[in-house]
Structure formats: structure tokens, C-alpha cells
């Protein structure tokens, strides 16, 4: 059970983010929900790299191979993912500010110029 728990958590976090995004009544909240979806990817990546009894993959105080370490590749991936996420969130929030300035609302229900 404990082996699959992180994967279930990742799936739940992703879906709950999608639910929040689909029902959002505020664009800032919506961008936040998108960030929640992204945290699912962090959970998944770190769960993939976990080794039982492993320590952090820093070889400053012991020789490589002396004891198990967690997978450093997924940590690099998660770090890249954080950078990507920060870029996306910043840009989307900047667009939300512009939407607020031009449309004078943050409610997606009131944005109705593009349809059909």
C-alpha cells in the first residue's frame, strides 16, 4: 500500500487541480489551480526516484556506492519542472492582470467576446 500511495496522491492532486480549474470563478484562483496540477508532477517524479533507506545524492562525506541514495536524475527533472512552472505561472498571472485591466473583471463567466 505504501508503495502505491505517492502515485495515488499524484493522481488525486492532478484531478483536484483540474476540478478547481473547471469550476473556478476567479482567474487568479484558476492559475493557482493550474499550479496545483503541476505539483502532481513533482510528487510523481520524487516518488519515482525514492529508494528505501536512501539518502540525498550528495557525495561529499562518503564514497559513491557505500550506501543507497535516491535517484538524482528525477531531482534534476523536478528542478527543471519548477523553473518551467514558475515561468508559466508568472506569464499567466501577467495576462490575468491585463485581462483585469481591459475587461474590468476576473470572473471567467463574464468574458464572452470569443465564442461560436
Amino acid at each position, binding site marked *: 500500500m505504501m508503495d502505491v500511495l505517492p502515485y495515488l496522491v*499524484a493522481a488525486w492532486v*492532478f484531478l483536484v487541480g*483540474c476540478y478547481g*480549474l*473547471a*469550476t*473556478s470563478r476567479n*482567474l487568479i484562483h*484558476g*492559475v493557482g489551480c*493550474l499550479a496545483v*496540477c*503541476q505539483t*502532481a*508532477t513533482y510528487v*510523481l*517524479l520524487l516518488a*519515482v526516484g525514492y529508494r528505501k533507506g536512501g539518502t540525498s545524492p550528495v557525495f561529499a562525506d562518503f564514497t559513491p556506492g557505500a550506501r543507497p541514495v535516491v535517484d538524482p*536524475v*528525477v531531482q534534476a*527533472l523536478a528542478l*527543471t*519542472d519548477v523553473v*518551467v512552472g514558475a*515561468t*508559466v505561472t508568472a*506569464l*499567466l498571472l501577467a*495576462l*490575468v492582470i*491585463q*485581462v483585469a485591466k*481591459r*475587461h474590468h473583471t476576473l470572473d*471567467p*463567466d463574464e*468574458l*464572452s*467576446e*470569443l*465564442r*461560436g
Partner: protein
Amino acid sequence: MNHLLPLAVATPLMGAALLVAAGRFVPRVVAEAVGGAVAAATAALTLYLLLAVPSPVIEWVGGWTPHHGHSVGIVLHADHLALGMAALVSLLVLAVLVYSWRYFDEPPRKHAGSFPALVLLFQAGMCGFVLTGDLFNAFVFFELMGVVAYALTGYRVEAAKAVQGGLTFGVVNSLGAYAMLLGIGLLYSRTGELAMRHIGAALDARGAPDALVLAAFVLLLTGLLVKAAAVPFHFWLPDAHAVAPTPVCMLLSGVMVELGVYGTARVYWTIFAGPGGIPPEAVTRTLLTFGVLSAAVGAVMCWYQRHVKRLLAFSTVAHTGLFLIGLGLLKPEATGGIALYVLGHAGVKAALFACAGILLDRYGSIDEYELHGRAPELRLTAVYFAAGGLALAGLPPFGTALGKAVTEEAAGPWLAAVFVLVSAVTGGAVLRVTARVFGGFGPAPADDAECETSGEREQPETEQQLTRVPDTMLAVPGALLAGALLVGVVPAVRSAVGSAADEAAAGVTVIPVPPHWSAAGMLLGVLSAALAAALALLAVRRPQHTRSRHWVDPLRLLHSGHIGDYVAWTVAGTALLGALAVSGVLR
């Protein structure tokens, strides 16, 4: 091994950095010339690698080559198809920079370098995405081109519609990208590899696919199909295309959406095509379902648009559907045909957007009804528009027609009928716009609809409304249409594209006959062009109905412009994708 390969990504990146740093201090002409020169240099480099270096070009970046079959480095894997796409991207970027030469009104007035810098970043993202052989790297480039595209879509921040379209585009595409990243994580957990070929080999070594491989396939395809704008993942595309600046639309519709199809093909061929992947019947069923759905919805919605750029956007949805059908057939002939179709379509669609931009900047409107009969003096633009419509419908000898004919032959009679109908309707819609706007034919349409996007009262993208169309704006669509024509006419191009597709596709050992014109294909092409002309004629001549209800109204109401709805549809599409893939595996 060729160490020049990473430069195809690094050159535009460095050009963009240079323009951002120095753009503040140089006049606009210099900034734009530097941007054009960098794009041209990248195009020359990709063409050199494509034509003069034996394929495939493989480069482990930084010399991190695999040890004992395991890799931690990042690999660029460029076969002819990948280099061909990179060359197409670079040439189109060059065309876009020439088109926007001195005309485009760039909001940060004191920073001349920002628009060309963003376009170069976009180019770097797209080139990186096609050239990389590493799955996580593909995600990073996918997001890079995505983020730049959101920024470019909302570039004119003073326009209310533009920021809304950019935001929708951003949310839906990023959600797709995160789904893709979940799939990548699952594949890494199974194989411990990130290089696509190594993942494929490791999956095959483990035997038949299980639920984890299936989930990874569904999640990866969700991301790629969101980019490819397959129905029901497509809702962001018309909203983004209707509002993005015209030069950006040329890139979005011309190549970026097609890169979703390319990514689907690449991921399937290198990872999931073996015995440890997804069975071919399941892939065929999945891609044909999404393809036919996209083609049908795209064509119907395209016909009922009055906003010209939105009309062209839905035509892109329809054609991407056709590409997915051709890809899903998993036949070498169809793959070669699709590669030609994508090449021809890029030229034609970019040319049509360029012409729509001319209308917008000359008349301050992009609405078919409002522009009725107002543009008879733009003769050359009218010729381009009509030629583009006919090429979209599949009139020989355009490259679109050749690709369509070759794919139709491999697809069998029923799917061939879909190809003919969809191309006729999308081409017919463009011809209808040509007849009304440039010819002033028929009665002026009544302005009665409520549930649609009109293109009235749009701001021109130039500093003031144009009185005379600049030569660069006229030369670019002409050159693009000529390029689409050459794809169909020059035998060397079609045999090269055919062999590139064969080389990239999985499991093709015998090189079949290269794509060629056949009598039946020519006839079907002429038939769909004639059908398009007839449809346009009927639409123009028909008296205007002012019916309160119409059978497509429910479909149009689904395109609500609401981010929450679009996210819900994306999740529903993922569920459909999963159901189709599972049913194929269980059988």
C-alpha cells in the same frame, strides 16, 4: 556525429538573447535585420545538415555518451524528417520576420528588439522539439514554444480579446504539458531511461504492455493532441488564432499545431511501436477516431464563421484531423502523403493568414460581412486568396493536393470521401470569403447572429491604417504559395519527403514507390476543388435566411470561450483517449 547540430537550437536562442540585451539601444531596422539574419542562418544550417550530411545526425550534448547501454545525457537525434521540419520552421520564421518588416506596430515602443527576439525564441523551441531524442527535453522545448506562443498571442496587451485568448491558450496548453510530464515520469519509473530510443528498447525487453505503459501512452498523447488541437482538445486554437497578431498566426497555424502531430508520430514510432508498446490496432483506432472527429467538427465550424482569421483557424483544426487520420493508418504510403500535406499546408495556410492580415491593416476589420465588396482594389491579394482556397481544397498541382491524393489512395474509399469533403468545405469557405470580400458578389449578408465572434472594429496591427500595402507584405504570401506549388511540382522534393518519412517511421524496411501523382488522385483533387467552388457559389448566391434556430447552434454554443469548459473538455478527451486505447489492448 556532427557537432553542428546543437547550433540549430543555440543560434536562435543566442540571437534572441542578443536582441533582448541590445534591442533597447538600436533602431528598429537594425533589430529586425539581426533577427532576420539569425533566422536565415538557422535555416541555412538546417538545410545544410538536411542535404549534405548522412542521416541520422546524432549528438550527445556535452559528450555525455551512454555507458553500458545506460544514458544520463541528453541526445539530439536528427533524421531527415526532423531536419526537414526544422528547416520548414526556420524558413517560415524567416517569412514571418520579412512579413512584419517595419509594418508591425510593436507595443513597447522603446524596445525594438522584443518582437523579433520572441519570434526567435519560438523558433528555438520548435527546432529543439523536433530535433531532440530525449523525452524530458521534448517536454522542456514543448513548454518553451508554448510559453513564447502565449506571450506572442497576448502581445498586443491593449486589445481586450488578445489577452483573453492568450490566457485560454496558456491554461489549456500548460495543462496538456503537465499531463505529458506525468506520462514521462511513468515511463522513467518503468525503464530508468529518458532517451526515446532507449525507452522503446527497454519496454520491448519487458514484453507485453501493462496498465502503466497504457497510462503513460494516454498521458503523453493528451499533451501532444492538445498541441495538435484535435477535437475535443481544440477549443483554445480558434480563440488564440482569432486574436493573435497575424505574423504569429502564420507560425501557430503553419507549423506549431503540426508539431503536435509530428510529436505524436515520433513518440509512437520510437517508443510504443514495438512489442512492449501499444498494439497497432489500438493506435489506428484511437488516431482515426480523433482524426475523423476533428476533421468533421473543424470543417463544419469553419464554414459557419464570419471572422476570417477564426475561419482559417477552424480550417487548421479540420486539416490536423486529416493529418491524424493519415498518421493513424500506419501505412508508409500514407505517412509520406501526410508529410507532403503538412509541407504544402504550411505554405498555403501561412499565405492565407498573411492575406487576412493585409485586409485587417487596410480596412480595420476582419469580418466577412462588414468587408462585403469593400476590397476590389486589392487584386493581387484577391488572387492569392483564391489560389489559397483552391489549394486548401486540393487543386492539383499544389503540394496539398499531392499529399491528399497519396493519402487518399492508402486510406480506402470511406476515408477518401472524408478527405474530399473536408478539404472541399474548408477550401469552399475561403473561396466564399474571396467572392464576397474582393468580388462583392451576392447580397450583403444580414448581421443578425448573437452566438458568434464577429471581426468588426478590430485595431489594425500597423501604426496607422494602411493606405497602400507594402511590397514585403505582398511578396511573402506569393512566395509561400509558390513554395506550396513547388512541393507538388518538383519530383525531387516529393521523393525526398517520401524517403524521409519512410526512414522515420517504425518498421519500414522496404522503401516503397515514392509519392507520385496518379490519375485517380488528380481526379479526386479536381473534384474537391470543383465542389469547393460550387459550395462557395451556392453560399454567395443563396438569399440570406434569418432563421432563429440553426442545426449547428448547439455545436457553436460549446465554443463558449470559457476556460473552465475547455478544461473539462480536455479531461473528457483524456478519458476518451484512455477508453479507446484500453479497448484496443484488452481485445
